[in-house]
């Protein structure tokens, strides 16, 4: 759809190395100066099953998979049917297979695609240590237009530790692959050459890594971890990184421990975070409520996967929204934020740390599998704004009131070690001093204070990404922002303006700001990746939506694609 973009799927059975060559292609494209976006999908096998690496290379920043794939290359076709729904092929797509590993599945050849065979295995067997996936890399590089030198440089770096033979094998395979493409394949429309740029100005990073980086940049120095797909990589990246930054990561016995460890660390003054997914998040809710009542800043990242229950752990969905917003018992106001792209995982997490610390409250960050496990080229973020800065008392004396009623609702927090500041943090309702209280007046005051500090705060322009004009608006959040943004860009290219509102700050709700953003709007389309209309119900509950309202609500595991959004709008108007 986008002339400056090409989408490629690389499939193969276990051990075929499609992730390796997909990542190599991604790095080469990034080095060559393109933007790119890689995601992957695997069969149910724990290890060694079939998988597919999906790559989109683009002249502009890219935040979403495209509608279709222009190129599909299979090292072999083992269980390829499993992925059919995930790889919609463009009309006339180039489908490449290796006859020596078997014919393509029938349904594929029935499609209006161009099927070509390449002797990957046979050619590779003629090269010492040659591997079909490296040939595939050469073929694809040639089709896209990545110069051999860029690939060679990249292999030099990647295979550094593997020795000269491996490197030679890699280069020979890539070269042979390029030749195969030149000889056997029709010329394809190549991407325009990338614009020049200075090295180091971009990052090649996954959303999960970006989340970790945002946390450390924000000031997080204590992390508690219990592994869970698809959040584990945040924790794995943080383990050495927070250690280098003078903090630590502790692997806990379960999520009940990890949430309480971070509350304990933060009580001690150290900005603290944990990351999990739906099932683990559910276990943390009781203690997140403790952090609300005791006013302890913490950040909890939920990298959402398909639910309910264990669901489909390796796939993306936005269906933990209700839990994040309302899942705490009692009246427990807290922050809920969601990154709108892989790049934004960094910003939103950093901002979440900043807000949690400023407001002495838990912040939940709702990322998802598709943001977290996709790897993309993004702009390098600027300097360090939004650091953790917690308000502590200038001086403490015997009359210190930990939960003092202040105009902002934020009470300066004494940190263990401050003489005279001793108090007991408590999940029981309490008086301003912090002693347990069952009085209606204390309860009303503290409930009000905890609400007020959130609703009275000025969050500035970052509460949402707002783009475009016109009388039709699309409201969305999280990872569906990418495809919506692309759909609206296409509409703009076709001369129609549509507004985009991608909500980053989900709680507390910002009805006045959304009101402004929707001024003059007559039609609102709400886009979300879940089954139960969670975002739509949330918007109804807290906002006024002008004019006619429609919802486009599709559960995972398949991603929402730009064309899906476009169809919704076009069918309506």
């Amino acid at each position, binding site marked *: 759809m986008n002339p400056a973009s090409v989408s490629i799927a690389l499939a193969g059975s276990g051990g075929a190395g499609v992730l390796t060559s997909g990542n190599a292609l991604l*790095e080469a494209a*990034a*080095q060559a100066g393109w933007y790119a976006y890689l995601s992957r999908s695997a069969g149910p096998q724990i290890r060694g099953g079939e998988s597919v690496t999906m790559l989109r290379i683009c002249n502009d920043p890219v935040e979403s998979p495209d509608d279709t794939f222009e190129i599909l290359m299979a090292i072999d076709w083992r269980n390829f049917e499993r992925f059919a729904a995930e790889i919609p092929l463009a009309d006339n797509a180039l489908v490449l297979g290796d006859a020596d590993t078997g014919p393509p599945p029938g349904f594929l050849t029935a499609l209006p695609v161009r099927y070509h065979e390449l002797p990957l295995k046979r050619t590779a067997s003629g090269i010492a240590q040659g591997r079909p996936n490296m040939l595939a890399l050469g073929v694809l590089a040639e089709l896209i237009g990545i110069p051999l030198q860029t690939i060679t440089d990249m292999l030099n770096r990647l295979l550094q530790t593997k020795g000269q033979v491996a490197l030679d094998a890699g280069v020979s395979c890539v070269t042979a692959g390029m030749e195969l493409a030149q000889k056997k394949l029709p010329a394809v429309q190549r991407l325009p050459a990338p614009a020049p740029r200075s*090295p*180091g100005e*971009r*990052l*090649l*990073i996954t959303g999960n*890594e970006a989340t970790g*980086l945002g946390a*450390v*940049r924000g000031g997080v*120095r*204590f992390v*508690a971890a219990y592994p869970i797909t698809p959040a584990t990589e945040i924790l794995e990246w943080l383990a050495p990184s927070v*250690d*280098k*930054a*003078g*903090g*630590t990561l*502790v692997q806990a*016995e379960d999520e*009940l*421990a*990890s*949430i*309480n*460890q971070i*509350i*304990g*660390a933060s*009580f*001690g*003054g150290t900005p*603290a975070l944990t990351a999990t997914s739906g099932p683990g998040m559910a276990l943390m809710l*009781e*203690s997140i*409520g*403790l952090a609300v009542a*005791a006013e302890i800043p913490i950040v909890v990242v939920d990298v959402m996967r398909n639910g309910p229950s264990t669901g489909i752990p390796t796939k993306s969905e936005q269906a933990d929204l209700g839990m994040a917003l309302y899942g705490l018992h009692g009246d427990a106001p807290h922050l809920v934020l969601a990154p709108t792209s892989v790049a934004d995982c960094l910003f939103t997490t950093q901002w979440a740390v900043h807000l949690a610390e400023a407001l002495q409250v838990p912040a939940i960050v709702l990322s998802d599998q598709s943001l977290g496990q996709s790897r993309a*080229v993004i702009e390098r*973020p600027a300097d*360090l704004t939004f650091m953790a800065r917690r308000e502590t008392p200038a001086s403490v004396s015997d009359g210190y009131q930990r939960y003092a009623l202040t105009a902002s609702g934020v009470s300066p927090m004494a940190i*263990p*070690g*401050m*003489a*005279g500041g*001793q*108090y*007991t*943090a*408590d*999940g*029981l309702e309490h008086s301003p001093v*912090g*002693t*347990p209280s069952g009085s209606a007046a204390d309860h009303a005051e503290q409930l009000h204070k905890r609400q007020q500090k959130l609703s009275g705060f000025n969050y500035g322009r970052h509460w949402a990404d707002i783009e475009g004009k016109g009388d039709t608006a699309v409201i969305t959040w999280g990872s569906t922002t990418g495809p919506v943004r692309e759909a609206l860009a296409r509409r703009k290219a076709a001369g129609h303006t549509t507004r985009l509102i991608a909500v980053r700050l989900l709680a507390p709700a910002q009805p006045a700001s959304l009101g402004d953003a929707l001024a003059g709007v007559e039609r609102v389309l709400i886009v979300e990746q879940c089954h139960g209309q969670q975002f739509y119900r949330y918007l109804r509950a807290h906002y006024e939506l002008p004019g006619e309202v429609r919802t486009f609500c599709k559960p995972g595991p398949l991603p929402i694609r730009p064309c899906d959004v476009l169809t919704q709008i076009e069918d309506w108007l």
Partner: protein
Amino acid sequence: MSVDTEGTTAALAARDYKSSVKPVWCPGCGDFSVLSALTKALAEMQLPPEQVAVISGIGCSSRIPAYLNTYGFHGVHGRALPLGVGLKVARPELTVLVSGGDGDGFSIGGNHFLHACRRNVDITYIVMDNQVYGMTKGQASPTTAPDWSLSKLTPEGPGINPFYPLVIALASGANFIARASTSDPNGTARMLVEAIRHPGFSFVQILSPCVTFQPEQRDWKKLVRPAPVAATSDPAKAARRLMTDDNLFVGILYQGSREPFQPRLENRLEHPTELEEQFAV
């Protein structure tokens, strides 16, 4: 309170560690004695109150932090240990005590107990064991006798094997294991001093009667007696000793020398953005 914030500290008395909050405990509750032993121990060690944090869960016994003039955290039921672990690991210079009841620590909190023993962070865990859930008005706890039939929830008794805290602590790797009794607050105070001083995870079970729901425990003061053996650093010996334990021996059972768990917390970055270089293209 007589702490000079400039650094020179006048001598602190036990009462300087008490807050002005009045305990909610029933008259005669053993927990008063634990409170008193704890303030004595802190005074004995002359720890500046602001350098001490006492962390608890939920239960009668878990109310203790508010009655102290140290930092405190009254968390949720069963999660005091991970709160304390997080605090100590992030702030190793503080003295971190975790305290609570047998329900809090061995029932809902049992998993954290196991893993805190294993992890061996340098904290002291004080369980005021009254073999009952006092706060919720008298149900069987893990340490309750199987035939105790005074709870409406288990009118024929819980009927299951009691939980032996010292045995589990030893099996899981706690570094210091002791039992005290509220009938001897001074002895308890001394034991707490040793527990706090001992590096790594120290566990002190204190027999603390619930006069309201376990009135027979008033007799504990007649029944407890010093353990017939001295502390050992050999887990095998300690295990053998536990076999002759009738749960009323008082004393230090085990003092190990495992290295406490404490990450270094040492910044090795010039600037946090250094971490970004690994992703640069």
